[in-house]
């Protein structure tokens, strides 16, 4: 490109600033400022509100983080969402593979089917699970039939119920993320592997799986971030007796009216989810993504 062309194509210097301004105002106003308040409130020892910015103390941190109950909640939050993520990845992996290799028509149809749960209100979907898993539901009845001891309230209020709800929730994210990864796997790599003698298992473990690790990490981190953050699923399926981080924040903030504790836990949640996503994309970009697409 000639120098003249480069100059004439360049936009006025403030064009970029103007074009991102609305988004920037929204992000700073709706996310940044509340986050500052969140930190400020977390540094209080009681519900002092915004006029107590100067009373900065770590007393709240000590109190909340030394409570073994809080650590049990952290552990449960991690456990249920990690388990749900693993199950969702295992279930979406083959689906995403067929989706990525399907004809154009079949793809459109599969997309519609995969996305359809997202078009239904989460409360309607949870109501479905409450019926299936609750007292007199199909699942407890079957479990009882094959010899499991099922409490009168059915499976509601168990970690298993929360995991089931979370798997249902994050499955589409898993399929869509893995589909992107699989579509970057070229068919001629498969032909080449076959030509060189690869059996199905060699093809999978030596070629397809290694090439999908990046997509798997991305998909899993997205699913995990949704899993630890979501409120409605653990609130309804956990029935208040299996608190996770999000339901604990709700309780501290709106039931116990302990804003410093709720703020601190909210910060933990936001940071945790952010670290998860950033960490995963860093790992992928460092080790699993560079130049994988065909040049």
């Amino acid at each position, binding site marked *: 490109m000639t120098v003249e062309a480069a100059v004439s194509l360049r936009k006025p210097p403030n064009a970029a600033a103007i074009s991102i301004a609305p988004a920037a105002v929204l992000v700073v106003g709706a996310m940044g400022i509340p986050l500052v308040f969140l930190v400020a409130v977390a540094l209080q020892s009681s519900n002092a509100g915004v006029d107590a910015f100067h009373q900065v103390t770590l007393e709240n941190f000590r109190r909340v983080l030394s409570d073994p109950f809080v650590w049990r909640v952290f552990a449960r939050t991690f456990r249920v969402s990690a388990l749900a993520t693993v199950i969702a990845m295992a279930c979406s992996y083959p689906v995403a593979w067929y989706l990525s290799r399907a004809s154009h028509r079949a793809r459109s149809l599969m997309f519609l089917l995969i996305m359809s749960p997202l078009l239904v209100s989460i409360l309607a979907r949870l109501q479905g699970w409450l019926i299936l898993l609750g007292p007199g539901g199909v699942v407890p009845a079957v479990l009882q039939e094959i010899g499991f001891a099922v409490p009168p309230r059915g499976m509601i209020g168990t970690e298993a119920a929360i995991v089931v709800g979370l798997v249902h929730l994050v499955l589409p994210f898993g399929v869509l993320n893995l589909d992107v990864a699989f579509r970057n796997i070229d068919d001629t790599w498969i032909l*080449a592997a076959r030509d*060189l003698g690869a059996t199905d298992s060699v093809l999978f473990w030596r070629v397809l799986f290694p090439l999908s690790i990046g997509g798997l990490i991305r998909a899993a981190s997205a699913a995990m971030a949704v899993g630890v953050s979501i409120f409605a699923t653990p609130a309804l399926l956990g029935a208040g007796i299996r608190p996770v981080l999000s339901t604990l924040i709700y309780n501290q903030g709106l039931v116990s009216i302990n804003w410093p504790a709720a703020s601190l836990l909210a910060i933990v949640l936001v940071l945790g989810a952010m670290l998860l996503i950033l960490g995963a994309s860093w790992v992928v970009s460092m080790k699993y993504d560079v*130049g*994988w697409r065909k040049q």
Partner: protein
Amino acid sequence: MLLEMDAVSKQFGSTMVLHSITFSVAENERVCILGPSGCGKTTTLNIIGGFLVPDAGTLRLSGRIVNHLPAYRRETATVFQDYALFPHLSVAENILFGLRVGRVPGGEARSRLNWALELTRLHGLERRYPRQLSGGQRQRVALARALVMKPKLLLLDEPLSNLDANLRVEMRRELLRIQRETGIASILVTHDQHEAFVLAEKIVLMERGRIVQVGTPAALFNAPETVFAARFLGFENIFRTRGGEPSSLTLAGLESAASAPGAEQQVYFGVRADRVVLGPNAQRCAVHFEGVVSEVEYTGEETTYFVHAGPLTIVARGSEAIEHRRGTRVSVGWDPAAQWMLRDDG
């Protein structure tokens, strides 16, 4: 015969892509399948490689019918058009892939790896990944990965088409050297006449799913049998006469072969551009016309003239600098011995 393809046909949906393809490859023979895009040459290669099953006909490798034998059980190895190197494996791991899958013992695998690296001049690049290689280096890795399997027949699908012009000539020489050193039989698919002529001992010329002509490069160049073959191999002047003998040509009796089919009795012939005579000397030729130079192309090495004479555009080429300017009247002619009779292939 190493490979015998006998009346092989293939259909995709309702489209016949291969019509009764028959040809053979001897041990150590270098064969090129040459043809324009969509002529079925890659489909033919994929059938030989074991990636497609023929609908009819038989395919024999070393005398054994292999129509349904999967790719990895054939004594063939394919170099794919875009190389298909595994991006997550290093050069050495790519080359060793087939040996590891085939459980070739470590010591032998290492010596075969070294042999392949030596042959393709890739030493020092073993630890690189495909994304860190140039186009030519990737091509070498793809070759090494196929050769290390010690196939009896090497299949190359447009191996040079992804390289830029200079590199293509260089890799063409490399490919020829490697094939000579290994003595391996090969089938190379290309749409490039020069590539086919340099690399092949035998050329299979294809058009629209059929074999048009099989022969040595010289046989094809000097004696094309059909209008398509002549045009594809660089006969720029292809004419037809209505009825009469082409030895007594008049301008009125000639038309360009490109025009719509007309009378029943058509005789096609071609004249090479370098056999066409321009200027006063043309009047001494048995066949000559008066025309006007409509365009001149000068490349430095040669000059090409396009001469309008009646309904014809006659192409003449010479090694001299420009002698006839655009728009000047000029005599154009040729010796009847330069006329090569062609069969119309519809």
